[in-house]
């Protein structure tokens, strides 16, 4: 293919600058000893110290991580079982129907997921708070796990299972010793995406969180509505660091397994 001439290079450079400018802008001012995001007075780490001294914020941070890890684990388990169930469905119409249902939550606007889950939880009497947030995150992560795992399952040759069965493996062995190792890359990718889905979610959590429970996104929202505090900037610096580490981790996994780079996120 033709090499890039100057103009396209400039265009790409501008796109990159615009994409990263807000993030670096936030991080830059996180070191500002002044109060706002306009005048840089002098370098300070006080806002980072403030993040670690703010126990309320730390509790929210821990909440966010706990919800993300738990929901990713549980949704991965259910999603893998679901993908296996879809694989073994012999009725094609039925399989397509299930796949369509699976994808509804992926394309649904967050607001609708949040509102409908709020109705559901209120109706069946789940108290709004940790439980409702966790269940919601599990619920909206399951379809993405299925999407990541199913292609791996379909890649798997059925003769592999037949061979295992012929060699005397029980059905349980087939699942744990043949199927799961083969689809491990898909499972990891699914787990990882579920994790980031959960960490990033705002809208759904906003609907189903009660008064006493909050995650980082919801907290940032209410802080941002109140105005600029450089604690958020410091927090964003930390989050950026963690995100880059996670992305590199995911990149390694997906390179090893050649699975396409992350799907669509809302």
């Amino acid at each position, binding site marked *: *293919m*033709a*090499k890039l001439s100057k103009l*396209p290079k400039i*265009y*790409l450079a501008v*796109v990159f600058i615009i*994409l990263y400018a*807000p*993030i670096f*802008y*936030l991080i830059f001012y996180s070191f500002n000893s002044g109060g706002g995001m*306009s005048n840089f007075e002098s370098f300070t780490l006080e806002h980072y110290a403030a993040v670690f001294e703010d126990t309320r914020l730390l509790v929210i941070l821990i909440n966010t991580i706990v919800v993300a890890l738990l929901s990713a684990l549980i949704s991965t388990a259910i999603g893998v*079982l*679901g993908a296996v*169930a879809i694989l*073994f469905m012999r009725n094609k119409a039925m399989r397509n129907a*299930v796949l369509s*249902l*699976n994808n*509804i*939550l992926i*394309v649904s*606007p*967050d*607001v*609708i997921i949040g*509102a*409908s*889950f709020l*109705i*559901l939880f209120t*109706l069946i009497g789940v108290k709004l708070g940790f439980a409702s947030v966790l269940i919601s995150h599990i*619920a*909206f992560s*399951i379809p993405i796990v*299925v999407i990541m795992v199913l292609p791996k399952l379909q890649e798997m040759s*059925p003769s592999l299972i*037949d061979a295992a069965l012929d060699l005397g493996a029980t059905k349980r062995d087939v*699942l744990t010793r043949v199927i799961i190792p083969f689809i491990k890359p898909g499972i990891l990718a699914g787990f990882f995406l579920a994790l980031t889905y959960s960490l*990033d979610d*705002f*809208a759904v959590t*906003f*609907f189903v969180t009660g008064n006493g429970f909050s995650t980082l*996104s919801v907290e*940032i*929202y209410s802080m*941002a*509505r109140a105005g*600029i505090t450089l604690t*958020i900037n410091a927090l964003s610096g930390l*989050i950026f660091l963690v*995100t*880059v580490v996670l*992305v590199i981790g995911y990149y390694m996994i997906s390179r090893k397994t050649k699975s396409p*780079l*992350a799907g*669509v*996120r809302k």
Partner: protein
Amino acid sequence: MNNKPLRPLYSVPYAAWIILFVIAPIALIVYYSFFDLAGNFTIDNYKNFFTSVYLKLTISSFWYAFLITLFSLLFAYPTAYFLTKTKHKQLWLLLIIIPSWINLLLKTYAFIGLFGLYGPINALLEVMGIGEQQILFTDFSFVFVSVYIFIPFMILPIFNALDKLNPALIDASRDLGANAWTTFRRVIWPLTINGVKSGIQVVFIPALSLFMITRLIAGNKVITLGTAIEQQFLVTQNWGMGSTIAVFLILFMFIIMLITNGKEKGASNNGKTK
């Protein structure tokens, strides 16, 4: 595969999930849309939806979503195209994607500072002699921030489509005397239209339902369907009306998906070796 006895067991959690968290929520939304604030069965919510207030809201929501999608596409297509021409294109693509992994709220929050009266954009305008402008809480800031948020999701599918494009087709077109524009219009665009369609799908639907950006950046001036739903559910506690708007949003979602998925089969045959 004769694993029938096992099947019901492992299918249970997933089936339960589908029933509880896919079918039931939609059914509940539809059900609640028929109740008013006092809990009486009514179709007033639907009547209300067709009053000027909600129709205006729907139209403006579509207009903003259209603008956001259009600008995303306008900026994303060249970006994706140039990206496929770079060395190490996967790495560059990853760099485009990284900002989309940063928490949405933080990026939106950054624009409060960037666009603020004393922010760098205004400082720049001042230097250029244009003078301070109120950027925050305008339509412009809303559309800009939304495009910023959504553009990676537009780039990704277009990049994938362009990446799959056989370069021989472009060479052939050029050899046959087509100029760059004709080649783009008659060869590249039709062959990547599916990427564009999925890009439109993943931008337009969320753009219809934004509510956080409207609140933080548009300062309640812009009201989208998403904002309206949030308002009805969490502020006025009118779940019936909120559900009715949600029902329409779901309908719009299906229509958009039908349009953007519709011709996929026919289009994908175009020019591809079969």
